[in-house]
């Protein structure tokens, strides 16, 4: 029945109930003129009202017995081969993990379609978490990325065993793949870059992996890494919410060796934890050993090491023992004492697996890669790379022999970098002239830095634009134009032109500042690499603000269009990212000089953006808990609130809206919790202590956030 119809019926029913018996007939006649159907419905309601008797009269009460019989264990692995699960048949046992058993399976109606089905161990999931399993599964199924094994489907068997249907990946764990193929460092880094790309994609969709480790990254025969079980660890997390705890609850992270300090401590897990795990993985892939030498890698000693021990740079973990063996690789010495590297001939050393000598491996790792890895596995989440993209960018910079952000700048470092750039050009065709130039450089060693700044054969600062072009380009411009026009507002076209021009100006300013910072560092030597890094961080923040705004422009309503030009003009000024004073003082350049309404700092902006995406995704999802109407209402209120917040005019009103919207959400719904968390994270960071008391969410979160976000005034610690 349509909603209008329902309201019509309900209103008439209501009116009739208020009338004395003898007046009802007349009212019915008046109310249902020419509408016999409405009349029939309301008459039925009137009759049913009397007939309903004691229906619902007594409030419901359950017996308190909690069914304890829900814990069917998954049977022994082989027992289940041949069993039907949904439309699939389990064909072969593939493996057994912490969370369940995985089977190769085929669709019954199409044998060619092979999938992996994971039967979730009952002890891995609490009964209450099942509802969450269902809603989360749908969200996870939307993660589509070439390096993420797809989650297709899921459900429960008639026995109540939850299962997940996933893309079947035929491959080797990344560490075994690398060693088995004797991949060199560049190829290893290439694989990690792909992993980071997948992680970045998932983080953009608000999914955290929580259990990144070699066995969860399979590399296919074609050399494509695929991340398995994205988000599953968190989903099956035995502690409600997002915490894994060691001592407090007796529960342990699934894989301590790759767990971040905050995971060990049982603090909330964020994207930073995933980046930490990738850092540990990179550490091992580079030098062949884990960051911490602990006998029992799954015991409490490992937890302590992760929390307390400072990791040594990977280059220092390259063994010295293997050296002699490497120099005589072909034949182990006859008659040599058995104590002299007895296993060497059979077990290839980590160096040889990378096609290198220990000395060479050490020197390759020393410097950039040491710095990158150590930055990735800092104990404090705020000191790590802020995003997977930033992590990847640093690796790419290293591969292109450009200065990496993780490394503190020194004269020697810059000079060495530039020399290497000259000696190892990316494009072979320019090799000769670079060699010639390098030769010249050697002649003027003493004046190297001057020579570098004046007579560079190529600008070490790339032509900027790529990063920001991913946000504002012809295609996004066209999208925004179309949706602005589609609002049908009379001034939409004009506003678009002006907003678009303002964004163009902003982008030009961004590029110019990017170039300026780079040249000031690498060409003129006026800024240290650390200052370059800070400036870049600042620019990253500005860029993300622009991204938020352009995203917002992609889904505009009247508010957005009306204030579009103003919103662009209120973006934080870009040129301030090159502010020498702030950079030299180790601060991020100042924001908000006049205290005008502004976007939250970079971190929070990112959160708000994620929230917005999240809300957008939630529109149209109709779970059993809430009606599509409610969902739409919530999503619209939140979006409205965000618009107001971002445009900066009515932060208080926006805050109220969000509070109100979130209170209407079903409290048990995962979406509700997720939204609250997202709002907390995003807005808490954006609100100052002076936030309006009408905004308890923001107040609360400002207090509870403390040091969890990277501070605006604290520079990243150099390695």
């Amino acid at each position: 029945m349509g909603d209008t119809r329902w309201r019509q019926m309900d209103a008439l029913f209501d009116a009739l109930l208020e009338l004395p018996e003898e007046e009802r007939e007349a009212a019915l006649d008046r109310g249902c003129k020419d509408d016999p159907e409405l009349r029939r419905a309301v008459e039925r309601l009137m009759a049913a009202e009397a007939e309903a008797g004691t229906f619902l009269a007594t409030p419901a009460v359950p017996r308190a017995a909690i069914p304890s019989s829900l814990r069917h264990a998954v049977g022994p692995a082989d027992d289940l081969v041949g069993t039907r699960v949904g439309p699939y048949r389990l064909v072969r046992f593939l493996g057994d993990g912490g969370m369940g058993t995985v089977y190769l399976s085929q669709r019954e109606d199409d044998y060619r379609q092979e999938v992996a089905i994971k039967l979730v161990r009952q002890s891995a999931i609490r009964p209450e978490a099942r509802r969450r399993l269902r809603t989360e599964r749908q969200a996870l199924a939307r993660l589509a990325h070439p390096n993420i094994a797809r989650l297709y489907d899921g459900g429960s068997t008639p026995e109540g065993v939850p299962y997940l249907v996933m893309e079947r990946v035929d491959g080797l764990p990344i560490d075994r793949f690398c060693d088995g193929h004797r991949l060199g460092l560049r190829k290893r880094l290439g694989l990690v870059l792909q992993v980071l790309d997948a992680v970045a994609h998932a983080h953009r969709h608000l999914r955290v992996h929580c259990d990144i480790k070699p066995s969860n990254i399979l590399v296919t025969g074609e050399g494509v890494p695929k991340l398995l079980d994205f988000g599953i660890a968190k989903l099956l997390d035995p502690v409600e919410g997002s915490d894994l705890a060691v001592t407090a609850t007796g529960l342990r992270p699934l894989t301590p060796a790759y767990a971040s300090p905050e995971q060990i401590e049982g603090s909330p897990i964020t994207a930073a934890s995933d980046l930490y795990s990738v850092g540990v993985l990179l550490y091992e892939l580079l030098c062949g050993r884990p960051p911490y030498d602990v006998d029992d890698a799954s015991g409490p000693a490992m937890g302590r090491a992760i929390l307390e021990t400072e990791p040594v740079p990977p280059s220092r973990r390259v063994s010295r023992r293997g050296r002699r063996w490497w120099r005589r690789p072909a034949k182990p010495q006859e008659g040599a004492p058995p104590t002299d590297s007895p296993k060497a001939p059979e077990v290839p050393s980590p160096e040889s697996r990378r096609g290198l000598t220990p000395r060479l491996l050490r020197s390759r790792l020393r410097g950039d890669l040491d710095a990158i890895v150590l930055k990735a596995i800092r104990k404090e989440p705020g000191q790590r790379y802020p995003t997977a993209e930033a992590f990847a960018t640093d690796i790419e910079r290293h591969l292109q022999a450009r200065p990496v952000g993780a490394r503190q700048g020194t004269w020697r470092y810059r000079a060495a970098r530039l020399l290497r750039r000259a000696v190892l050009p990316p494009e072979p065709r320019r090799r000769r002239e670079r060699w010639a130039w390098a030769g010249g450089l050697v002649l003027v060693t003493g004046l190297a830095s001057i020579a570098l700044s004046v007579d560079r054969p190529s600008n070490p600062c790339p032509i900027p634009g790529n990063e920001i072009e991913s946000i504002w380009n012809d295609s996004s411009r066209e999208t925004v134009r179309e949706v602005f026009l589609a609002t049908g507002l009379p001034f939409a076209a004009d506003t678009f032109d002006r907003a678009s021009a303002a964004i163009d100006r902003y982008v030009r300013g961004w590029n110019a500042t990017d170039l300026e910072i780079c040249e000031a560092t690498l060409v003129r030597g006026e800024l240290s690499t650390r200052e370059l890094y800070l400036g870049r961080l600042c620019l990253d923040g500005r860029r993300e603000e622009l991204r938020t705004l352009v995203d917002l422009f992609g889904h505009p309503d009247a508010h957005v269009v009306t204030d579009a030009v103003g919103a662009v003009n209120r973006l934080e000024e870009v040129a301030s990212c090159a502010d020498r004073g702030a950079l030299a003082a180790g601060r991020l350049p100042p924001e908000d000089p006049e205290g005008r309404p502004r976007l939250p700092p970079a971190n929070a902006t990112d959160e708000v953006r994620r929230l917005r995406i999240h809300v957008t995704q939630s529109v149209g999802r109709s779970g059993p808990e809430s009606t599509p109407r409610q969902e739409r209402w919530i999503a619209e209120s939140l979006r409205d609130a965000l618009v107001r917040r971002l445009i900066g005019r009515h932060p208080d009103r926006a805050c109220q809206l969000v509070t109100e919207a979130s209170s209407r959400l079903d409290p048990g719904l995962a979406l509700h919790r997720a939204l609250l968390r997202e709002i907390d994270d995003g807005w808490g960071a954006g609100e100052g202590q002076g936030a309006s008391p009408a905004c308890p969410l923001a107040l609360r979160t400002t207090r509870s956030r403390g040091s969890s976000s990277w501070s605006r005034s604290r520079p990243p610690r150099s390695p």
Partner: protein
Amino acid sequence: MTDLLRRWSAGEPQAFEAVMETAYGHLHRIARRQAWGERRGHTLQPTAVLHEALLRLMQAEVLAWSDRTHFYAVAARTMRRILVDYAREQKRLKRGGDAVRIPIDVAAATLAIDGRPADLEALDAALVRLEGHHPRQAQVVELRFFAGLTGEEIADCLATSTATVQREWRRARTWLYLELRGERLGG
């Protein structure tokens, strides 16, 4: 109470304790009342129900309640969820022919229609549909049937008059009754 909730949401842990105590007392009364009203209600354990309810409330992380409305709304919703979960579980076990029979017989008398028991799951689904048409009616039902609040209490919560609550309850109950009988009104 309202003040306590406000202080709680502003981050005062002591206020939280006080809120829980007050809420607990209240919910406990509700559960006792329900227990007495229940058909074969000698084995009911309202305290256990409450524990479970409060546990869920806390897990839901809904700490930003600014008034009692939210609190009771959440309490009622939680009760509803618990009951529906139980009902669903019971049904599943019966269907699966499992040896374990859990003797939950949720408010069978009050839900019975034409002599045959109606299930909570169906009521839940009907409530979801009602929410789509008239959220407040659904909330009235929820507060009354799943949290055991009286008309006055509900009116207080929803900031409306007792008369309005009464009228909405009558309409909602009738509509749900027809829904559970499987009757679709034309239109």
